[in-house]
């Protein structure tokens, strides 16, 4: 049964779906016109802005959609709550910034431009669906939807060997991890007897149903197999091997998109599935996160040390960044997600791990996209994505260099930037949960990352340029750069409202906590 309320709350997704199809059709009719990509880019942007407004308008809503007609009280397959709204906004903002940064690039480099815009819009749709899915079937369909659009976008440069290689690797890894995820979901379905996350939680909460039966031994494998799917999207070690090749081969705007959007959506899904369906197993999955976080940060940072291709380097950097975010997941409190206020006078819960993840993602969105705007600009204007291509950038594009320096400092976590606030929050969550070793590993990793981030800074600031002609950024790219820069500094200097936003957005509808 689909009610009027469902339609109203599903509006952002509807806009994206209809808009994406409209762009595809419009592309057919505009084929012959010279200015079609510019027109299509503006139309696509308008669609995204409309979806953003529709999402933001649902701030504060907490409703379950698509309930079954047989049992209208039972929750449905999709939910709109603070958490969904947050990740809808993240997904759409990512695409908007990537669009602004890539209008010129797409015009110059790729064929089939209309499809490019449509595919990006469909990817955004997939990410918003991932944010609100509350049924394992919906989870897997949206995950797969995002994967397929990502494969195509990665291989978009058809004549380019690296682009093809990246896409094929991405596809092969993706197929296998999807199969594993399916298997994990089927195990969970077999144990709990339902695909709905709320039903699963209720079965585990019922002391007479599963607890104590041999079926319990299947839960941990199910958690691990599901993590494989989410970890693949996030690029967590050991599910990360696709990402360096895909990042290097993909058109640079797509790399920018992949490094932020799917990662954020993966975190949304991971938190949602584990917090809603498996709150009884918080200890188990949180413990798993500690190990994965440590390995992910350390491997990402250490392998990044030896990279000479900037896109590849940033691929490993973003693996490490996901590791920092996982520190927050290890410090999650399901009670906070359910909206139960921290105990009176207890200093122990001032920082929530989930809020830490959300804050970090918000900071990372502007920081990493800002950095990638620089990479897109150098790729587009100077035709290089290797370290020597950045030599003497200070002389060729002073403002871009200063902005990129600030983004690098933010990735390291040096105040007063957004990245520092994000790190402060996830480390704080870990420390409150007595995970001192995890926080220390994270802190030491921050130092390792300095080595390779500053290698790029060294090129930009210290070296003499091979070709001293100034680089002039197109207006749209400059606009995107300004958005990212100002928000990176704004979050760093005046974090209070953003922290409030993150704290409000951790609430998920109907999370069950045994008191």
């Amino acid at each position, binding site marked *: 049964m689909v009610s009027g309320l469902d339609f109203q709350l599903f509006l952002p997704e509807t806009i994206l779906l209809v808009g994406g199809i409209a762009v595809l059709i419009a592309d057919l009719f505009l084929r012959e016109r010279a200015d079609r990509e510019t027109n299509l880019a503006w139309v696509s942007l308008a669609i995204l802005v409309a979806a953003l407004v529709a999402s933001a308008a649902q701030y504060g809503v907490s409703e379950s959609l698509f309930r079954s007609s047989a049992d209208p009280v039972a929750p449905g397959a999709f939910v709109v709550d603070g958490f969904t709204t947050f990740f809808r906004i993240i997904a759409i903002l990512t695409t908007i910034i990537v669009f602004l940064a890539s209008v010129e690039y797409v015009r110059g480099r790729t064929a089939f431009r209309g499809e490019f815009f449509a595919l990006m819009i469909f990817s955004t749709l997939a990410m918003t669906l991932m944010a609100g899915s509350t049924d394992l079937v919906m989870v897997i369909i949206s995950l797969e939807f995002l994967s397929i659009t990502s494969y195509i976008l990665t291989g978009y440069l058809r004549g380019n060997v690296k682009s093809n290689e990246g896409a094929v690797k991405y596809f092969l890894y993706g197929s296998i991890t999807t199969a594993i995820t399916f298997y994990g979901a089927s195990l969970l379905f077999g144990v709990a007897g339902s695909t709905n996350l709320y039903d699963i939680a209720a079965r585990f909460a019922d002391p007479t149903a599963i607890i104590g039966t041999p079926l319990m031994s299947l839960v941990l494998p199910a958690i691990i197999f599901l993590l494989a799917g989410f970890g693949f999207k996030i690029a967590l070690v050991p599910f990360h091997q696709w990402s360096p090749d895909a990042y290097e081969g993909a058109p640079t705007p797509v790399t920018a998109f992949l490094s932020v959007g799917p990662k954020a959506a993966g975190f949304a899904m991971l938190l949602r599935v584990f917090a809603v369906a498996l709150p009884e197993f918080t200890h188990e999955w949180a413990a798993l996160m500690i190990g994965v976080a440590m390995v992910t940060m350390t491997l990402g940072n250490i392998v990044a040390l030896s990279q000479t291709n900037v896109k590849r380097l940033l691929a490993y950097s973003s693996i490490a960044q996901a590791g920092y975010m996982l520190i927050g997941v290890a410090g999650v409190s399901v009670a906070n997600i359910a909206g139960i206020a921290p105990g009176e006078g207890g*200093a122990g819960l001032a920082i929530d791990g989930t809020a830490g993840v959300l804050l970090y993602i918000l900071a990372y969105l502007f920081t990493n996209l800002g950095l990638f705007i620089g990479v897109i600009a150098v790729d587009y204007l100077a035709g290089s994505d290797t370290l020597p291509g950045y030599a003497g950038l*200070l002389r060729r594009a002073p403002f871009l260099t200063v902005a990129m320096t600030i983004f690098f400092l933010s990735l390291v976590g040096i105040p007063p930037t957004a990245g520092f606030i994000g790190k402060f929050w996830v480390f704080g969550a870990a420390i409150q949960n007595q995970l001192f070793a995890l*926080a220390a590993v994270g802190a*030491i990793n*921050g130092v390792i990352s*300095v080595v390779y981030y500053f290698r790029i800074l060294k090129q930009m600031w210290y070296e003499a340029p091979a070709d001293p002609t100034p680089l002039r950024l197109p207006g749209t790219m400059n606009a995107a750069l300004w958005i990212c820069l100002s928000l990176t500094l704004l979050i760093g200097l005046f974090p209070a409202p953003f922290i409030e936003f993150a704290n409000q957005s951790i609430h998920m509808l109907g999370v069950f906590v045994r008191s």
Partner: protein
Amino acid sequence: MTATNTFGAPVLSLLIFLPLLGAVGISFINRRNVGVIRYATLGVTLVTFLWSLQFYFNFDWNNQGMQFVDRLVWLPSLGVQYLVGIDGISLPMVVLTTLLTAVAVGASWPVETRVKEYMILMLVLETGMLGVFTAIDLFAFFVFWEAALVPMYFLIGVWGGPRRVYASVKFILYTMAGSSLMLIAILALGLSHAGGPTFDLLELVRQPVPPGTQALLFWAFALAFAVKVPLFPLHTWLPDAHVEAPTAGSIILAGVLLKMGTYGLMRFNLPLFPDASRQFAPLFAILAIIGIIYGAWVAFAQRDVKSLVAFSSVSHMGFIVLGIFALNAQGLNGAVMYMVNHGLSTGALFLLVGYIYERRHTRELSAFGGIWATMPLYAVLFLIAMLSSVGLPGLNGFVGEFLTVLGAFRANPIWAAFAALGLILGAVYLFTMFQRVFFGPITDTHNEHLEPLNLREILVAAPLLILMFVLGIYPNLVLGPLQTTVAQVLQMVGTAVALR
């Protein structure tokens, strides 16, 4: 401890952010107007210096607490505040910072490449340093601490000597490694505070953490500060950074940035972790003594004047740490006095070494000899700075050395004996260096006709040299406002009664 602001206006914040505002203003000047940029920067630093003097004259010597306090809630949910204030320990550091920054800008006239970026970085650095010496909230302190780190990285890396890249990366890695664990410790300390999270130092010192936890947190803080000081065996970044940095960078580095380490030990480690401080004091004193003797020994072997002065810093900073961990009034007073003196004398030495380097483009000892004959005024200025560094009575250096060694003696006479040995070695290497540069016959024909010091060079060096005499004769200018603060720190550490 109390926090007061009798002005009712954010006078201190104005001081801290004045250089930053200046930097913003200068970013609008066309980069071709090099002269305008230079004079504007000098103007900003001079105004900042004059404004900082105002704090000196309005400082209430008998007030135990923080003065000129500005407070702004930053993150209400965590009790994080922008909270700055000045007490007897911060006061000399603030004035030293503003003075040395102005001197460093004056010494930067020969910088020809990318002057605009250079000057902006200097001003941002000054804001960071002033914040470090005035922040009372641990979060704000950390923000300023890191903010002071990055500009120095670029100053060394872009405008430094031939091995600048290596030196700048080494500098930032050492410092970041130290400070990253401090961040964890700050979080642990602030979040575990009974009665809700807070990062306000004045709140935190009221309820010291249990002794077991203290040791861990003490080390996390101490490591960050010890790298900055630098305390043996963490000193290896310093010679590289000093030698490769441009003259102004060396002045700031030796004069102010190293003091951030000893200041941090005094401001945070002692009051926050009294039990751990008492427990580990002997260890730190011994490391300090090793640094004193080792630094002096290695300085003696240097062939490059600048790296000789750099190693002398390792030795001198050892005295400051020794004074701090003597944990008595003489030691702490001496340490602060020594911090000011070292800033003046080493700052002056780096400045003067820079002058000769600009004329000869070498700093090798063997390239000089007989300079007294060609540049007599320069030789006299150098002699004063050197004697101040050696600790000649009548000049400022003596007071600090005497007090720290006296403090060390009262804590443990054997420490004092070794420290005194360091004093002698200090005289040996500095006199030897002076002899080889200024006396004897002119061995190199280049030295026969050296351009005499110009007016700018004399004016830039003058304030440092004048202060050496002033503080040597009347050290109470620094020690006076310090007394109540030192007494209070000792009271917190709990050694005041035992040793008085």
